[in-house]
């Protein structure tokens, strides 16, 4: 009986894992850019590849969003069925590279001069052990304020240059009966805002030591406590229903003029564009007060897998097209981010995009381009999520004082390391 069962099982499983033959003139791509603007931007890449004779094939993922895609990717890689490339974030690339499943694009990188044009901070994630394993698509930065200009004019506000200016501006909005700060009370949004608060409170040196190097002295320093106090101050300006709100609904509050400002990454600009708003006339983009000159970034990458040799040509074509100046410009104009190489002309970008490109260049040269801890570019996911937990518990009152918050932060990060 048992033997029969085993044979049955073997038969059943052999159907499931039947060999997956891939066309050599085909780029298999796992990504979750399926909505409006992003899909349109990706179409540019598809057409570029079609010109060179490569067909594009989306790897289907049930259910949108990065989590589902990452679970699907994990299953594909475990089954030895690699896609040509996959959209990936931060440490995921390094995890897969450490597992030895990523390809090697060093030759192409040399030929195309990526070493020089891609910011060094980004190469930390796209180069593993001296080998190029991923092609960065864009650079997002999170230390932005998005302000409704009509509300700003009404309350007579000006660009805040320091944290105290910012608080004064929020007070003005409050006095005028507008929700001062639009925030979505989900842990990643709170932590994304806190990234900026730490940079503003402690300066670039401190941010790097605390949020990228995870230096324990810095994490429990008075500066960190002050950062938590500043965060607590900001949270007093949100509306009572903020908890659990999605980020784009918070952006909508600013667009409609129900709220003055949102602290959010530059993907928020896409929402303004979708609502036909123009920077400068309808909305304003400023760097988070006290962080001008520094950029906290995260970046989308196309991780390149170690595919069989006959599929490598398609992979090289994809990587080259991804980092071509024309695609970098066309894609990022739509996406709201800035190009992943610093030598792309900014002619097609709007005012906020131009500022983003200039800031990135300056930060890259001045060594003030830092990974966002909240977005998973400061430390591995376990640490990043422990950090988000602590920030969120502080915002929602499970952690009551900034003293307790830094103790918890050190403990949680230690635990996750």
């Amino acid at each position, binding site marked *: 009986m048992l033997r*029969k069962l085993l044979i049955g099982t073997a038969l059943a499983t052999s159907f499931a894992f039947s060999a997956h033959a891939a066309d050599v003139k085909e780029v298999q791509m796992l990504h979750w850019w399926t909505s409006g603007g992003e899909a349109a931007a990706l179409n540019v890449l598809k057409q570029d590849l079609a010109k060179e004779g490569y067909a594009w094939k989306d790897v289907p993922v049930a259910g949108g969003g990065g989590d589902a895609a990452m679970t699907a990717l994990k299953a594909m890689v475990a089954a030895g069925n690699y896609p040509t490339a996959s959209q990936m974030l931060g440490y995921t690339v390094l995890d897969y590279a450490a597992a030895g499943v990523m390809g090697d694009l060093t030759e192409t990188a040399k030929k195309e001069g990526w070493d020089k044009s891609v910011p060094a901070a980004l190469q930390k994630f796209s180069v593993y052990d001296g080998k190029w394993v991923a092609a960065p698509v864009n650079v997002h930065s999170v230390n932005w304020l998005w302000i409704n200009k009509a509300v700003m004019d009404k309350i007579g506000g000006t660009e805040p240059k320091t944290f105290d200016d910012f608080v004064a501006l929020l007070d003005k909005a409050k006095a005028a009966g507008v929700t001062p700060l639009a925030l979505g009370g989900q842990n990643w949004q709170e932590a994304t805002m806190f990234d900026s608060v730490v940079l503003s409170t402690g300066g670039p040196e401190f941010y790097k030591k605390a949020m990228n190097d995870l230096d324990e002295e810095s994490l429990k320093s008075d500066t960190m406590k002050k950062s938590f106090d500043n965060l607590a101050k900001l949270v007093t300006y949100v509306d009572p229903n903020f908890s*659990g709100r999605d980020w784009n609904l918070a952006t909508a509050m600013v667009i409609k003029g129900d709220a003055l400002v949102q602290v959010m990454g530059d993907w928020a600009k896409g929402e303004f564009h979708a609502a036909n708003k123009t920077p400068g006339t309808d909305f304003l983009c400023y760097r988070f007060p006290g962080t001008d000159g520094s950029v906290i970034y995260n970046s989308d990458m196309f991780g390149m897998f170690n595919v069989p040799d006959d599929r490598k040509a398609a992979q090289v074509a994809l990587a080259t097209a991804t980092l071509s100046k024309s695609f970098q410009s066309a894609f990022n104009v739509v996406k709201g981010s800035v190009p992943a190489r610093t030598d792309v002309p900014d002619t097609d970008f709007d005012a906020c995009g131009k500022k983003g490109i200039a800031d990135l260049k300056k930060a890259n040269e001045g060594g003030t381009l830092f990974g966002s801890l909240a977005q998973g570019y400061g430390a591995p996911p376990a640490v990043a*999520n422990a950090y988000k937990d602590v920030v969120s518990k502080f915002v*929602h*009152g499970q952690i009551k004082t900034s003293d307790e918050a830094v103790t918890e932060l050190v403990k949680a990060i230690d635990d996750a390391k």
Partner: protein
Amino acid sequence: MSTVAETQIKLTPEHDARPGASVRSRLQDLLPKIVLAPSFAATIVFVYGFILWTIYLSFTNSKTFPSYAITGPRAYQRLWRWTFESDPPSSWYTSITNMGIFGFLYIGICLALGLFLAILLDQKIRGEGVLRPIYLYPMALSFIVTGVAWKWFLDPGLGLEQTLHQWGWTSFHFDWIKNKDFVIYTVVIAGVWQASGFVMAMFLAGLRGIDGEIMKAAQIDGASAFQLYRRIVIPLLRPVFLSAFIVLAHLAIKSYDLVVALTSGGPGGSAWLPSNFMYEFTFKRNEMAVGSASAVIMLMTITAIIVPYLYSELREKSR
């Protein structure tokens, strides 16, 4: 001698006298087994096989990918430590206390409400055919739909509170879904709304199955309606309680999607259940060993509750 040999042959005619019939009848004997084999094999591999695999992984230091080197019970040690971190609450502490609150209230209220509705519907009332599906239909919805609908309904800025404010009752205040201490009760509300109609249907079927003669006899003996239900009907419904309990218990333990759709984890992660913890740690935080350990603990908890209950119920039945 020859006659004996002949009778022996006749005694076992299927084996060699008529080979065609023998194959067919053997096939007929085997058919149920053949039909069941694939699902049996699938269950062995995909349920029990992976339970063993999960237990194995919980003793490794698996992070993003499974690693197969046993490194000891570090994952359990961490969970054990987190079990007692109540101030500020660790994610695991929140998850298991929430499981206790949610499981107890969800099962308790569903059973009570389901029984109550079934008794009311059993009074030979008019329009039962319309009322029954109305209560039953929420069960046809997925937890995601239930979660999203209740999220909007309970949101103070959109739903109930806002509406009552517009109607003039401005002092009305109901913000549990935004409150870290009460958010788990909103999960109970949505869960009960969905499942109590189904429990009602189970009880109704049970009530219809009770012999009318017993009821009449009790009434002749002068039992009041309350006594009738307390002493006769409810004890007779015991098997229904068992089925309803098992259905509700597993729904409670696997309700992951309801928490996500209704609260997206709650303020500061205050609505997490162990299943959310498991998913977060395994797939988002790349702590597969800790995630596996939490899954094993969930399994052990279910076993500890269900097995003694099943054992006592089924043993009494066989007596």
